[in-house]
C-alpha cells in the first residue's frame, strides 16, 4: 500500500476514535457516617474536582450522589455534611455508577483551644479580674462558633484544652503588662515570651488565644501571631466571638477577604474571613477544602509545607492536585 494511503487510513481512524471516545462515564459516590452503613437524616454535598473545573451534587442522606460525563481528570472527591468531618479522596479511579466510590464521614475533628487572660480590661487595668459577664461571653464563643462550624459543614468542633477554657494565671507572669496594649510589631517577641512558660501562657497542640486590653489601640481587634507551631492568637478585651472565629480561620490557613486575586460572586461581607464585617455567617466549601488540605493549616501542620492552594485563583488551578476556587460553594449560602 502506498504510504499516502496508509497515512490517510491512520488519520481517518484517529479522527473516528476521537469522535467515538466517550466524553465521560456515569459515576456515583456512596457515603457512610462514622463507619455505620446508615447516616442520620440530612443532606450530603459532594464536590468533584478536576483541572477543567468542578462538579457538585446534593443528595439526601443514604442516597448515592450521581454524576454523568465524568472523565479521568476528576481525580478528587470531597463530601460535606453537618455533624461530621468532610470525607476526602484523591487519585480516584472511577468504576461506573453500578460500582460507586465509597467514602466515610468521620466524626468532627476536635480543635483544642485555651484562652489565656493577659489583661481582661479594655481600660487597661490589668489587675482587674475577668468579669462574670465577659467570662460568659467567652464561653458562648465556643457554643456559637461550634454551631456555625457544624451548620457550615466545616467538620470542626472547638473544645476546651484539658477541660479548661480560660486560664487567668497568665497575668502574674513578669512582663505580661508589656503586651496588654498589643502593638502590631510585637508578635515575634510575644511568641518568644509566651512559649517560655508551658502551662502558664501556652500549650502545644492547642490554638492559644490571648486576651489583652487592646490590639493596635482597638479593644475589638484580633491578630493571629502564629508562624506554624505554636498557634497564637491575640484578641482585645472587647472582641466579639465572630472575630475570634475569624482569627481561628487564619490558624486553619485561610486568608483575609477581600482578596483582589480571588473571584467572588455575591457578598463577601457575609464570609467569616472578611476582615471588616459585622455580619459574618458563612464559610465556603472552597475554604473548607483548604482547611483540610493546605499543609500550613494547623489541622495538618506539615513543616516544611509542601501542598498549598496559594492565595489566588490562578494558584489554585496550578496545584497538583488542583484546588477548587476559594469561593466555591456546594450549597448556596443560606
Amino acid at each position, binding site marked *: 500500500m502506498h504510504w499516502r494511503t496508509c497515512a490517510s487510513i491512520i488519520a481517518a481512524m484517529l479522527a473516528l476514535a476521537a469522535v467515538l471516545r466517550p466524553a465521560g462515564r456515569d459515576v456515583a459516590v456512596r457515603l457512610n457516617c462514622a463507619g455505620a452503613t446508615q447516616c442520620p437524616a440530612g443532606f450530603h454535598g459532594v464536590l468533584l474536582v478536576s483541572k477543567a473545573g468542578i462538579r457538585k451534587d446534593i443528595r439526601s442522606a443514604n442516597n448515592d450522589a450521581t454524576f454523568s460525563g465524568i472523565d479521568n481528570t476528576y481525580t478528587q472527591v470531597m463530601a460535606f455534611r453537618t*455533624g461530621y468531618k468532610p470525607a476526602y479522596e484523591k487519585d480516584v479511579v472511577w468504576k461506573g455508577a453500578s460500582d460507586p466510590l465509597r467514602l466515610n464521614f468521620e466524626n*468532627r475533628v476536635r480543635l483544642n483551644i485555651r484562652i489565656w487572660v493577659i489583661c481582661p480590661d479594655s481600660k487597661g487595668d490589668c489587675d482587674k479580674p475577668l468579669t462574670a459577664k465577659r467570662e460568659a461571653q467567652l464561653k458562648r464563643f465556643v457554643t*456559637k462558633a461550634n454551631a456555625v462550624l457544624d451548620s457550615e459543614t466545616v467538620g470542626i468542633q472547638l473544645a476546651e484544652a484539658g477541660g479548661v477554657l480560660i486560664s487567668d494565671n497568665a497575668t502574674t507572669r513578669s512582663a505580661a503588662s508589656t503586651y496588654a*496594649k498589643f502593638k502590631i510589631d510585637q508578635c515575634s517577641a510575644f511568641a518568644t515570651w509566651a512559649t517560655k512558660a508551658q502551662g502558664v501562657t501556652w500549650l502545644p497542640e492547642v490554638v492559644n488565644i490571648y486576651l489583652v486590653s487592646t490590639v493596635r489601640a*482597638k479593644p*475589638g481587634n484580633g491578630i493571629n501571631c502564629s508562624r506554624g507551631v505554636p498557634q497564637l492568637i491575640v484578641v482585645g478585651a472587647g*472582641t466579639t466571638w465572630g472575630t475570634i472565629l475569624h482569627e481561628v480561620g487564619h490558624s486553619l490557613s485561610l*486568608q483575609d477577604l477581600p482578596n483582589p486575586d480571588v473571584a467572588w460572586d455575591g457578598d463577601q461581607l457575609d464570609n467569616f474571613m472578611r476582615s471588616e464585617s459585622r455580619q459574618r*455567617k458563612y464559610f465556603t466549601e472552597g475554604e473548607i477544602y483548604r482547611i483540610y488540605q493546605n499543609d500550613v493549616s494547623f489541622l495538618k501542620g506539615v513543616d516544611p509545607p509542601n501542598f498549598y492552594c496559594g492565595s489566588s485563583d490562578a494558584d489554585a488551578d496550578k496545584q497538583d492536585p488542583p484546588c477548587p476556587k476559594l469561593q466555591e460553594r456546594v450549597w448556596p449560602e443560606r
Partner: protein
Amino acid sequence: MARALAAVLAVGLAMAAGCGRRVNAIELAKDWLMRTCTVGERAGLDDEIRANAAVIELLFIDAFTKGPSDDERREVIQSVEHVWTLMQLQVAEPEVYNLSQAEIDAMKSISLSEEKTWELELFEYNYRAAALAGLGITGGPAGKNLLASTAADSDSPFNSVATEALASNASRQR
C-alpha cells in the same frame, strides 16, 4: 436635627474640598471602623486615611459622638438572629448535627434577648473605640481635642483608648 444637618454639611464641605482625590473617604472610614482583623490585605489603610485626614477626621468624630447607624445596629441584630436560628435548628434535630448533650445544653442556655443586648453593647463600644483610635492617625486639631478631653475624663469607658490614640499620634509625629 440642626446638629445633624450641620454635621452632614461639614462632612460635605470637607469632601468637596478634597474632591480631587479618587479615594472614597467614607469607604475608608467605614473600613477602619468595621475592621477587626489587624493583619488584613490592605496594609496601606493607615496611609490612605492620612492622605484623606481632613475629611475622615470629621467622620471619625461623628462616629464617636453618635455611634453606629441604625442600619449597622440592625445588621448586628440580624447576625445574632442568624446564629440563634442555627442553634434552634440544631437543638431540634441534634442527631443530624451529631451533637452531644453538653452541646445541646449549652445552646439551650443562651437567651436571644441577652445575646442581642451583649452583641450590640460590644459592637457599639468597639465602634466608638475604633473611631478614637482612628483619630490617632488623622491627628488634626479637632480630633486631638476630642482625644484629650476623653483621655482626661476618668469616668469615660474610652479614656484609656483615647490616651493610647494620643500616644500613638505623638509617636508618629516624632
